[in-house]
């Protein structure tokens, strides 16, 4: 059904630590993994699933480590990958960072965790907060009597322990929306601003948006005593329609994903988001909207390459959001040829910097109010001898953050907190919109 064994390998493919869960695949098979990976990479056919004879390797890479699961059965691949990612999450919460060093420094606890995370190929308890209650780093404290299985492990509420106490009961709600955009940067309008008369013949006159979506997440920081029952109210269109409130000021969520604490069947029934939260930080839910929104920061660009001599770049950025709002930490990364040299910049606001290791110019603007338009010009020299290999045409990437604002218009209408002791608790809400995967192709 799932993994036969799990390995953590160093960057050269040497096993650092491993756990054999089922014993149906020889542990020595792992020796084939790295040669296979290298071979596939050379063939340009690298995939997350490799096989050697009857053995299948499902692998992911984390910093300089490979996490590899082996199996010879028709395993549930999505379960295995999810499990490997979860394992990384647990290790990271235990050791801050997961790297070769931290594995070696904590090998005893890594073994303990591997033993608890999975049994005979079946993932078991993978909630690090709960694991930390009975597998701790101060192992010498673990004398008998003290170490008991927390009942939480097998409870229906397996993510929250009983008996949590806070003096001040509070919940902080962060609504974070990321805008993913795939667009074609406009060229012509910007071209007019260029002093040089050369306008590239293939410049795309009108930019366009190929794909835009909003991925929102609602994160909670919970400081609540006892076993509180929470209910979150959003201006969800389906809910509004169900309760006859009309479509006004509501948002249509295309797909919603919840933390396991949320009662999914209840949501499916009447769109109520009700749950007993874990303690501390967690992501309550995420949602996706593919409604077309006006790109918040729009880019027009003209990149002219004069072979053997120079590259001229002109980028115009426009804030297409409310005048009252301000985008912070705006970074516009414009690709330049890898053999470019002697950069010169001119910006109407902010500063530009050449980052040769990424082959980009980064134009940073600390504060970018809505409705404004800014300009950046860059000039690079090119060597007279042209490079042989062809280069790709990476897109222009944009990063930004707009606080106190959600692009979808989603709102937290209420957060009800009920605990049997009857305490009063305060919910706090913050909104922020930021760039997700925001790329504009240049022509």
């Amino acid at each position, binding site marked *: *059904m799932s993994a036969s064994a799990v390995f953590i390998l160093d960057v050269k493919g040497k096993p650092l630590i491993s756990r*054999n869960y089922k*014993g149906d695949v020889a542990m020595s098979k792992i020796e084939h993994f790295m040669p296979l990976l290298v071979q596939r990479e050379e063939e*340009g*056919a*690298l995939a997350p*699933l490799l*096989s050697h*004879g*009857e053995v*299948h390797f499902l*692998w*992911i890479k984390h910093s300089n480590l490979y996490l590899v699961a082996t*199996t010879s*059965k*028709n*395993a*549930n*691949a999505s*379960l295995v*990958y*999810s*499990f490997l*990612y979860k394992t990384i999450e647990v290790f990271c919460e235990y050791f801050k960072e997961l790297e070769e060093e931290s594995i070696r*420094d904590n*090998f*005893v606890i890594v*073994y*303990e965790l591997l*033993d608890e995370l999975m*049994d005979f190929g*079946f993932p078991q*308890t*993978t909630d690090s907060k709960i694991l930390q209650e*009975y597998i701790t780093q101060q*192992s*010498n404290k*673990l*004398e*008998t009597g003290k170490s*008991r*299985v927390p009942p939480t492990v*097998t409870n229906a509420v*397996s993510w929250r322990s009983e008996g949590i106490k806070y003096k001040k009961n509070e919940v902080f709600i962060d609504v974070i929306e990321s805008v993913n955009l795939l667009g074609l940067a406009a060229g012509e309008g910007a071209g007019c601003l260029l002093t040089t008369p050369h306008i590239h013949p293939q410049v795309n006159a009108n930019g366009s948006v190929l*794909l835009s979506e909003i991925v929102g997440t609602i994160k909670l920081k919970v400081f609540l005593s006892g076993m509180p029952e929470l209910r979150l109210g959003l201006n969800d269109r389906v809910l509004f329609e169900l309760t006859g409130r009309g479509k006004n000021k509501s948002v249509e969520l295309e*797909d*919603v*994903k919840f933390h396991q604490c949320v*009662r*999914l*069947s209840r*949501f499916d029934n009447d769109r109520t988001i009700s749950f007993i939260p874990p303690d501390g930080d967690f*992501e309550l839910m995420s949602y*996706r909207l*593919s409604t077309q929104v006006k790109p918040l920061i729009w880019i027009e660009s003209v990149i002219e390459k004069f072979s053997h001599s120079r590259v001229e770049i002109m980028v115009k950025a426009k804030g297409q959001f409310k005048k009252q709002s301000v985008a912070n930490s705006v970074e516009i990364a414009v690709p330049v040829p890898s053999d470019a040299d002697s950069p010169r910049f001119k910006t109407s606001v902010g500063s530009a910097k050449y980052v040769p290791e990424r082959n980009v110019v980064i134009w940073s603007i600390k504060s970018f109010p809505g409705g404004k338009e800014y300009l950046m010009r860059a000039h690079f020299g090119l060597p007279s001898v042209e490079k042989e290999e062809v*280069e*790709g045409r990476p897109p222009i990437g944009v990063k930004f953050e707009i606080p106190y604002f959600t692009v979808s218009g989603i709102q937290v209408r209420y957060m009800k907190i009920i605990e049997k002791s009857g305490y009063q608790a305060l919910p706090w809400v913050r909104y922020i919109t930021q760039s997700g*995967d925001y*790329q504009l*192709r240049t022509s």
Partner: protein
Amino acid sequence: MTDSKYFTTTKKGEIFELKAELNSDKKEKKKEAVKKVIASMTVGKDVSALFPDVVNCMQTDNLELKKLVYLYLMNYAKSQPDMAIMAVNTFVKDCEDPNPLIRALAVRTMGCIRVDKITEYLCEPLRKCLKDEDPYVRKTAAVCVAKLHDINAQLVEDQGFLDTLKDLISDSNPMVVANAVAALSEIAESHPSSNLLDLNPQSINKLLTALNECTEWGQIFILDCLANYTPKDDREAQSICERVTPRLSHANSAVVLSAVKVLMKFMEMLSKDLDYYGTLLKKLAPPLVTLLSAEPELQYVALRNINLIVQKRPEILKHEMKVFFVKYNDPIYVKLEKLDIMIRLASQANIAQVLAELKEYATEVDVDFVRKAVRAIGRCAIKVEQSAERCVSTLLDLIQTKVNYVVQEAIVVIKDIFRKYPNKYESVIATLCENLDSLDEPEARAAMIWIVGEYAERIDNADELLESFLEGFHDESTQVQLQLLTGIVKLFLKKPTETQELVQQVLSLATQDSDNPDLRDRGYIYWRLLSTDPVAAKEVVLAEKPLISEETDLIEPTLLDELICYIGTLASVYHKPPMSGPPLTTSSVQMGAVDLLGGGLDSLIGGTNFVAPPTAAVPASLGAPIGSGLSDLFDLTSGVGTLSGSYVAPKAVWLPAMKAKGLEISGTFTRQVGSISMDLQLTNKALQVMTDFAIQFNRNSFGLAPAAPLQVHAPLSPNQTVEISLPLSTVGSVMKMEPLNNLQVAVKNNIDVFYFSTLYPLHILFVEDGKMDRQMFLATWKDIPNENEAQFQIRDCPLNAEAVSSKLQSSNIFTVAKRNVEGQDMLYQSLKLTNGIWVLAELRIQPGNPSCTLSLKCRAPEVSQHVYQAYETILKN
């Protein structure tokens, strides 16, 4: 202080030193020593020599130390089975420890020690733990049953653990239920026939209730288990779907995919007219799209599955084309999969967008991706007729870039477009010809030659172009040589006057100077055709070609349905069904292929657990021959069987002496190495000598006719018997007979003319080249309407798939593919009749069941009945 210090001791007497430390009186020192041992074990040193000393540390109240010793035991018990017994007592004791953590640890570890002798001692503690008051112990014990079953299945059955495990499905604790389900599913997998899970509406209800309460992993176990259930009617299917759909909102992608699997499978049972069916379709799209925001590896699994889902139910994602647009920083495996799905979703409504994207991709730098993008443009042209013109002009634009591999790829796909839309886009030929010199890949060269040959009459300098290839004829690959031969013959037939010399040249190159039998044979055939009957040659060589189908890479429907049941698993990623039992490939190894391929075979096959190599990441392109070197090899080995000839029935009396004035004729039909004959036995039961024999056939369904006169060399004396083999041809006059295989024969001798009729077995008409290639098979099977399918039962045929396959093969019924579906062997077979009719067959064999089911598909369904009879005859003899 970190643990890394334990790795540093590398002194000479290390083992000796450790031994001393392990036997120390001080607890702390002992623990340190065990840690050092484990550290050595971790870096791969053999510390098994310390076995007794480590086991001595087992009795401790220090939990951490205990865990380490257990870990050591799991690693080395197998190499020291006798000493492992020493540990048994402590295990048994620990299973009764007041601390549930220790009880669970003991039972968990014991199950991992795969030593037969230990398992006996495990039974009693396990029995207790299965009924433990603490759910943490029970959930661990549940998994332990699966472990024990893996070591000794009989023991588990004898001890009644399976029943206890089944009881745990009703446990009050959701995690126990989930692990019990997982353990039972795992056990059931190795016993496909057993009704272990015993799913019924009541137990399903329990599972659905537990689904709401258990961890994300438990939800996956339960959903995967539900997917194996077959609801009794559409109402039950719907009610399960309703309770599973909330899982689509789970944050864990694996939960979502397992839920999608259940829904996709149960949807089959819902009527499309149902409102609920439409609702469900709508609910599936958003979560599938969201999976594309997951980690790249999960995206890859999701995309491979979406590829199946869009083939099965295209309506789900038909409006979601854009989400499959490729992003610059997607990993290459994600890019290639997205491209594939884009083509599947391409339709008249979105073709403009798709083409714009594909054109963008075709100017990227990753060669594999670019090639695939160019091919994709060709596939769009073939799939969406209205877009063909736009696709062709896009391809021409790309040819203008002069990027070598883009040009070659474009030419290959333009050839396919020509095949699909003959006589429509010839205006581009001139542009193609300009690029002739830059083509260096065989596939592109072959495609170009095909185009020149096919349109020779419109290309003024076709002869020059083809001649230019002829110079290096022997350096070309076979693909190009064959194409060149055909191309020049086509040219000759179209412009005979100017090209006589050229055709002579190529024919002699192909027949006299080549070692390649395919090339030589084709050369001879053309040569003889041209020399005997140029008109016939024209009819053969310039015959109208069948149109290529729109989507050659669709997965065959029965396989698709099967793969849908495996959503989320490796099978769904490879697009190959999992195999149980010995994999198909090993048989070829035994047949001597091993010498040819050596160690290379392993890597070629990839997962031997699956039917074919996992080339799935780069699906076969349009028009490319699917058979690799490997499948050719299969053909080679299969060819051996045909030499022995088809099954021959014993002779039967066709004409009794009473009816023929003393002449008794009995006979049978044979087919050997491509020639059919009628084996006759003539007996003179009269009192006078018989002479002047002759034979004639009436017109019949397949044009059977004597290929030679009936030769009885000497007069047949009274009581004398003579055996004659009369060669038959199939070029006689055709008339449909009732029954189809009826043959009316007239035999003459000096006494009289006698008439009789006989039924010939259809398999004498099965030709030697009746093996269809896999791809073709899939396409044809799909193409033949369902009403043409006929199903038969072959009873009392206790053969296994292997035997059936080889038996049928000697009668020219070829196994194209073999699969194992839920314990049943499925053989996919093809055969061709002498008149070119193809018959496709699916033969289902259940091990242990003497009956097998035969489904036949043929464009001429009236032959099915007779093909079935042929199957019967061949298999039962």
